[in-house]
């Protein structure tokens, strides 16, 4: 499984730019999963030779395979006991390539203790003939070909690329992640690993210089480069929490793609400005679009939206009073992460936010979270960013809630970059019902009203 593929809008940008380049060979650096090569093939077929380059075990195998070169990958003797059953699937080029591709999924489990890993290994071995046949058949039918493949440092490669030929490259943003992705292939198979220098900041600078020095090029970078401002051909960011990719090019069209959350309305009425809370509290599972809409309306705009495991609207007597959303456990496997919780902002109640936290802590909420994960969840945890040492919302008056950790923003850990404190709160899940929560909240917090000028 290849991580870090090039998102669809970037593929479109490359496709469009390549259409304007003069006839001849095209050179791709840091090929990865050969997405750029496949995009170029979609545009030109095999009429224009495309050359690739990489250093990783998986990418080199695929590069050599697509270029028609030998695949010198041999199972290491120390893996013979555990992986000897792969031998019949390493004789033919397509068979071996399929085995290496499937290896990106299962080799990571080899030698690991534990029921899960053993089970997955057993299932892989049981289903191997089907999976292998399907993958090898796909590889045999692949039409994309490479003019050549260079296994080695991209800087050496760029030195060899003819100066007038176009170059396209999206260098790895996180070199270490990229290298560790295919470590398991390198561990299990002996192969002629190319030598390369670590990709330092200076190394990246060198690559940028080498690419620019030609009439046609496209370069995707994770960082904005003010010195290349006049070459900025596009900015692609597909999610609010995703990082933008800056596309620089010698010339050609300019394109941008910005995140856009899909939103859907919640048909239920919201509690009015002067309305008193009724007596029956209920939870309503929201779609992703409904949650995005209600969050956009009532949550601080300083918080970047993420994707919840489960989101619920909280209603009293059929009127929406707020919403909350959970993520799966992060550290403690029995503690779900309360990703967001917020009330309808215009009510007369000053402490309505506490009622939403309480609704999110009830037995009914627990049932929904447990149903989503099919496992026992007994607590919740959350992080509050604030300029005060305690949170007004979580701080007091909610049964069982405790401040677990207080971190003051520093240069090393800036928190959200806006507030002074990062506060970790947590509490039990399922200690009371919705009815009990509403009753308790009314007794402890329900009479605290906003003043006219607060509303």
């Amino acid at each position, binding site marked *: *499984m290849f991580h870090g593929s090039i998102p*669809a*809008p970037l*593929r*479109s*940008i490359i*496709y*469009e730019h390549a*259409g304007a380049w003069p006839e001849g060979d095209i050179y791709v650096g840091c090929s990865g*999963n*050969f*997405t750029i090569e*496949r*995009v170029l*093939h*979609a545009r030109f077929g095999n009429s224009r030779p495309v050359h690739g380059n990489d250093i990783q075990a998986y990418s080199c195998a695929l590069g050599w395979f697509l270029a028609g070169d030998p695949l010198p990958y041999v199972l290491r003797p120390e893996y013979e006991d555990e992986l000897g059953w792969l031998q019949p699937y390493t004789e033919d080029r397509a068979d071996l390539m*399929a085995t290496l591709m499937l290896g*990106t*999924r299962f080799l990571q489990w080899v030698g690991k203790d*534990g*029921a*899960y890993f053993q*089970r*997955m290994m057993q*299932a892989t071995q049981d289903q191997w003939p*089907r*999976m*292998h046949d399907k*993958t090898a058949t*796909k590889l045999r039918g*692949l*039409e*994309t070909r490479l003019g050549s493949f260079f296994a080695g440092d991209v800087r050496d490669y760029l030195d060899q690329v003819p100066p007038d030929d176009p170059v396209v490259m999206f260098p790895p943003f996180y070199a270490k992640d990229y290298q560790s992705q295919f470590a398991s292939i390198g561990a299990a198979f002996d192969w002629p690993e190319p030598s390369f220098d670590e990709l330092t900041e200076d190394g990246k600078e060198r690559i940028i210089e080498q690419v620019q020095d030609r009439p046609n090029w496209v370069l995707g970078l994770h960082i904005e480069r003010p010195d290349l401002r006049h070459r*900025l051909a*596009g*900015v692609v960011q597909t999610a*609010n929490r995703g990082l933008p990719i800056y596309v620089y090019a010698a010339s050609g069209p*300019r*394109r*941008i*793609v*910005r*995140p*856009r*959350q899909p*939103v859907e309305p919640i048909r239920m009425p919201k509690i009015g*400005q002067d309305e008193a809370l009724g007596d029956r509290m209920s939870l309503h599972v929201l779609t992703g679009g409904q949650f995005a809409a209600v969050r*956009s*309306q009532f949550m601080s*705009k300083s*918080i970047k*939206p993420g994707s919840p495991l489960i989101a619920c609207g909280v209603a009293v007597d059929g009127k929406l009073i707020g919403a909350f959303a959970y993520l799966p456990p992060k550290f403690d*496997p*029995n503690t779900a992460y309360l990703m967001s919780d917020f009330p309808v902002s*215009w009510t007369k109640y000053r402490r309505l936010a506490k009622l939403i936290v309480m609704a999110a802590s009830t037995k009914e909420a627990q049932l929904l979270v*447990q149903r989503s994960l*099919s*496992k*026992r969840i007994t607590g919740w945890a959350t992080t509050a960013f604030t300029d005060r040492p305690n949170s007004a919302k979580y701080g007091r008056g909610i049964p069982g809630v405790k401040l677990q950790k207080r971190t003051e923003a520093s240069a090393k850990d800036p928190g959200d970059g806006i507030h002074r404190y990062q506060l970790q709160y947590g509490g039990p899940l399922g200690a009371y019902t919705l009815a009990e929560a509403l009753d308790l909240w009314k007794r402890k917090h329900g009479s605290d009203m906003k003043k006219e000028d607060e*509303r």
Partner: protein
Amino acid sequence: MTDTTPHARPIRPRLVRRDPRLLTPLPMNARYMRKEEWDRLVANVKADGCLTSVPLIYGAGEYEEGRELILSGNHRTGAAVEAGLDEIDCMLIDDKQQKDELIARQLSHNSIAGQDDAATLKQLYDQIEDVDWRAYSGLDDETLNLLAEVSPEGLSEANLDFATVSLIFLPPELEAAREAFEQARIGQNASWLAARADYEQTLDTLASTHAAHKVGNVATALHAILTIVENHLEDLQAGYTSPDGEPLHRGRVGLETVFGDRTLPAPAAVTINKAIAAAVGRSEIEQGEGWRLLDRLCGEYLSGPNYTATPTDDQP
């Protein structure tokens, strides 16, 4: 009636400068902005150093000067605060307004917004060459379908085949249970129904198994639970045997609950098969009812030759 315009007096708004931090936002506002739209607005205001369209505010003695109510432009005013502007231009209505008028004006600014001709919008947008000015427009190439359509060859390996099993816990509503069974039969994947009362116990059992095997995966934990059951098949006798050794029902049960194993040695199986075939041949039992021979032999072993065959549901 042909003219639906309210019979209100004309208003005489005027431009004023205000500190955006002091103005009063609408307490209830149906209009909201997605995070990405808000960020764009703030960035645009920052870039401009001012608002390029003016909020509509209302005073008329009901709101103190400088703290007037923002009828329209709440997000723009907020963005001005976020962008650090000390002053913005506003259009002030100082004529006394009825509640209906205020709400109508508030809503009209958002609802009377016109439509874009998609083709012309694309043409105009596509004339913007600079990436930052494209972003400023609040539109993008993907939304306007201006990106090239590309379908590269797929390159992915096959994945493990798996089936989904849903455990559905129901209160004892018969109709719902029947429907769920029907759905389970139609669907490719399985749904297992269980009593709702068992839900908590299931989660606790799963939790114990997760902890014991140090495994987070639910399917693996369930697999471990099934293995334990497989190793204790004889315990299932409690489902059809009373504490004093009488049968609790006359339905059929699995042989593995008798023997504690799903298998038996092949020579023993051959002997049993021969004996059953002989008993069928002598018309002592019916074809396909081999269990009757075992029942008779075991009954005679316990009670002697006068043992009476066990009645079943099919043989009262």
